[in-house]
């Protein structure tokens, strides 16, 4: 049985703004083929389930409708792993400047 998400929960909705094949004429073919999609976050207006067509109230106070796709959506952007191609640059330029620190 689908789990209910309570009214007032911070969620994200998704909507297709323009379907694939109905994009602006100037866009390249790989863009032309895919839809223009929209994602907006806000507070859920009514108790609903994931995948339902719902209404949200955004941070600007607007009422928007779309498919409920995420609950309390996370910020997942990060730094990621150290990049080996950058790790030794500091040591290299310090050596050029005649310094010896930095494990060179």
């Amino acid at each position, binding site marked *: 049985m689908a789990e209910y998400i309570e009214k007032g929960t911070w969620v994200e909705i998704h*909507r297709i*703004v*323009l379907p694939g094949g*109905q*994009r*602006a004429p*100037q*866009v*390249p073919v*790989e*863009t032309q083929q*895919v*839809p*223009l*999609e*929209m*994602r*907006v*976050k*806000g507070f859920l207006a009514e108790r609903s389930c994931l995948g339902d067509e719902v209404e949200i109230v*955004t*941070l*600007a*106070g*607007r*009422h*928007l*409708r779309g498919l409920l796709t995420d609950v309390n959506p996370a*910020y*997942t*952007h*990060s*730094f*990621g*792993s*150290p*990049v080996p*191609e*950058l790790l030794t*640059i*500091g040591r*290299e*330029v*310090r050596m*050029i*400047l005649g310094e010896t620190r930095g494990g060179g």
Partner: protein
Amino acid sequence: MTAALSYDAVLADRDAIMRASVGIDYQQYVTGVLAFDYERLLADTGYDIPRTQAVQSRTGVGNTPLIELHHITALVRSLSAPGKGARIFVKDEAANPSGSFKDRRASLSVCEAQHRGYEGVVAATSGNYGAAVASQAAKAGMRCIVVQEAFDSQGIVQPEIAEKARACEAYGAEVIRLSVGPELFYVFLCVLKETGYFNASLYTPYSIVGIETLGYELAGQVQQHTGRFPDLVIATHAGGGNVTGTARGLRKAGAVDTTVVAASVDLAGLHMASDRDFNRKSFTTGHTGFSMPFTTWPDRADVPRNAARPLRYIDRFVTVTQGEVFYMTQVLAELEGLERGPAGNTSLAAAFSMAQELNADQIVVIQETEYTGAGKHPLAQLNLAKQMGVEVRRGDPRDNKPGQRIVIPEHPSQIVLVDVDLEHVRRSYVHHALESTHVEQPLSEIDLEFLAAETRSSRAYVEEVANEWHRTTG
């Protein structure tokens, strides 16, 4: 409800939506077929330098530090001929409230919006400007909506834009995140029409006049510090506002002989509206994908007349590679203790190359930094590049190929800027201007004068290019 209105209907209504949302009747500035009174458009904002400073100081915008990059200058001199190697300074714009110079642009727009009684502001931007508008709106107690191009059709979010969305939401703004494509403008128009909010476009006169304090301040700071104006100021160049506003501010400070350089990351070969290329650019702005089209035709913006007109101000236009910028970002952190960027580091890479040509007593200023962090950092961009199948390696930056290969220099001597042929850019501008008229008759005197001013050329030059264009287009 956003985008419930049909695409064609909204675009047909574009002029009326714009008029209502910007509060400027651009028609009153038209003086010819092509010509308009640019200086009057800017003067009519009513903001001179003291008035702009007064508005900006109320929210802690401006008066950012000027920092001399002693170690980077030493590195430049280690590579330069005797007597060469200019002193390099940077204006630490990351010290602004939302972490970039974009606060200067947003401050006057939000102030005007509030003054004119708008309930909220809308900005179409995937960059720092969104956070700046959101920050200013928060302080003004206004509502704010930011429309971003944020992710590709696979749902992969460009990490720098994800960070901007987070920042906007932290300031209490609604963020509309879209997939790739120029139809963002349609959604933007829908939002303006539905809300009746102010269009805090990057390209209104307010947005440009707000940057003048940057050039004005840095001229004064350099003079105070060294007893002279800077010889050269380098601005990272995308839509043209940064270069335009900074150059105007320098002139207002009296630094009329300072050379103004625009620097962009070379993204040749990548298409800005391509769903495939979107996450293979590794740079979201400050690149040629924006600077070339906006320099050769500024009036492609989201207002009828763009107040950013870079060709009027650029003395030199240069490009650097992706790998060179990532290299210099690391050098800035490790030699100067400044973890910043990406934006200003494009100018930094150009300054590093250019300073080697200049005398040791000359002064180069990189006119901005921006805050860095998760998503914005080179680590985030290079990890995404690798995920997208872009090769990342050390080597000769001449082998850098946007979207395929990011080559990070092996030695600082490999950082060599490339000059853009300004003559070619001027010619391209005149062609775009002529194409925009749809008129066969010869241009009026005032149009010729306007195009000469726009391209910093002469009437004779404009006539020659126009005649050639008419001959070849039949």
